[in-house]
């Protein structure tokens, strides 16, 4: 499993396995930073820190104050979406770097 033969399949153009892995890891960390940034924003910023300012706004056609909605509904929807986005991004990244499972 640690054998360094170049991976097969499309997108497999990794001349040096260790540089390839570093690039893969770096891209992964960038995705994590962005997705966790959103995770933090919807829950801790919108739902807690700025909840009062956002509560001044009511979501149109509903009775939800925006901050309260983020804290009890919106953040959870975003959490679910984040994981599915992550899955799509990572499956693509795995294939690009030829480290996906056969």
């Amino acid at each position, binding site marked *: *499993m*640690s054998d360094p033969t170049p*991976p097969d399949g499309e997108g497999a153009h990794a001349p040096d396995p260790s540089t390839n*892995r570093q690039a*893969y*890891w770096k891209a*992964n960390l960038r995705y*994590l930073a962005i*997705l*966790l940034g959103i*995770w933090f924003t919807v*829950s*801790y910023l919108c*739902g*807690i*820190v700025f*909840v009062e300012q956002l*509560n001044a706004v009511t*979501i149109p056609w*509903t*009775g*939800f*104050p925006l901050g*309260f*909605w983020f*804290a*009890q*509904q919106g*953040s*959870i*929807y975003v*959490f*679910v979406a*984040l*994981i*599915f986005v*992550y*899955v799509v991004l*990572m*499956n693509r990244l*795995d294939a690009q770097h*030829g*480290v*996906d*499972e*056969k």
Partner: protein
Amino acid sequence: MSVQTWTFIIVGLTFALYIGIAIWSRASSTKDFYVAGGGVSPLANGMATGADWMSAASFISMAGLISFMGYDGSVYLMGWTGGYVLLALLLAPYLRKFGKFTVPDFVGDRYYSQTARLVAVVCAIFVSFTYVAGQMRGVGVVFSRFLEVDITIGVLIGMAVVFFYAVLGGMKGITYTQVAQYVVLIFAYMVPAIFISLMVTDNPIPQLGFGGEVEPGVSLLQKLNGLHAELGFAEYTDGSKSMLDVFCITMALMVGTAGLPHVIIRFYTVPKVRDARISAGYALLCIAILYTTAPAVAAFARANLLDTVTDTPYAADAGTADRAAMPEWFRKYEDSGLLAWVDKNADGKVQYVAGAAFVGKPDFGDERGPVGQRMVLNPPTENENELYVDRDIMVLANPEIAGLPNWIIALVAAGALAAALSTAAGLLLVVSTAVSHDLLKRTLMPDISEKKELLAARIAAAFAVCIAGYFGINPPGFVAQVVAFAFGLAASTFFPAIILGIFSKRANREGVVAGMLAGLLFTGGYIVYFKFLGGSAEQWWFGISPEGIGTFGMLINFAVALGLGRFFPPPPEEVQAMVEEIRVPRGAGEAHTH
């Protein structure tokens, strides 16, 4: 048919189903027993994780808790869902690639240390037992309330069922039973929620009805805020905890969730790394259905309660043309002790305003009051509030408040049992695995045969069921207090150790063991001081409650692990190679034997 007959039929059918599944999915190897053979489909694992995660507390108590806390209840909603994002992005794929059986396995191997493994084993057992006692108690309470059997008999029946499928089937039996339990519990939660949403807001989807209007131009939340202001409660959408405390509790619950062994272990059961990722998504989706419904149910129930009880004459024949008397369910739950009323101003009507009606939990005498109410012996308080409401009533009484047919009430009982049993089984497995695998196989008796290890796992599971049952029948008074412990400890021990193990190649044995111990002592000390040694809320550091202190414990753990680790040599070559290896998915499908 009566509620009780329906309950016997529905609970009986679901139990038969669970046992049938257990026989069909018996474990024949340790791999079956620990990780269901590693061959569970991601969707099935997602549903099983959902059932594993949603306990009796989520099912019965959470909506009621939010109902009384309003905005402050958001800490549970965000805290117990947001942790899955951390789990999916930071832990699950890598631990699946690592591919052993347990959390102590990872900690022990990654930090090349038996001490680290032992610390992890002790924490895993402690966290799981803390949790499981509450579940068995939940089983007993549901049995006694719906089937009118003694709590002890209820716990014994629950033990027998869990014993059957956990001991026989191990992780394999538990997983497929949990899939069935998820279906039962989510159906049982949603049906009354949909009806009550229709009743209050004319919208069948609770998540939308939550933001709907109760009368033209007045939204449900505006109405609640208005009523709360009138009655002296904090505004429903505002809450009364400090922002920092809300922040810390949410963080501690999220990080604690991601560090709980019975949740993490589920991601070892899928075949591939990509399955582990998507399966975390399915798990959160399954959980989110209940967790976005709960706050809606909370608001509906709150509005219903305030509407129904405020200034309502208690006696059944005291109704007038413009003010109906108290409905029947009020007296029924008064009989079961979940409601209590003291008529302080002797007007025969219920006044419900902010403040406790009397000191402590209700202690009923044998006498009846002038209008037939049960009298409590507790000393009354100075304020004008006359009503005590147990928060569990919000979910349990919903079908009756909404006037739903008897079979739905029975369904709620089956759902609550499914939630309690599925969580209990998942936790018992962690305990038995910690003993047979981490303690016996990896520490004390490395040459134990596969067959003997499997036998040891079954015996350990059987023992764990009995101990859990004992605590269910004789609950130690501190069960409710120690839940903060489970999350706080998971947050301040496991989470940093695992994260560093994956994301830092430099993290070494000395730093991480010291970090875990520092987190453990700090968080444990703070909780023990404030929960058991009589520390008061004025002494909280920066106003942070014991529930939220795990956040600081985690930061201390990270700081110690990284700071102290610098003074010691980096991990050996082969450990660094292992970290390289778990960072890429390729190769996880291959057999990992030990």
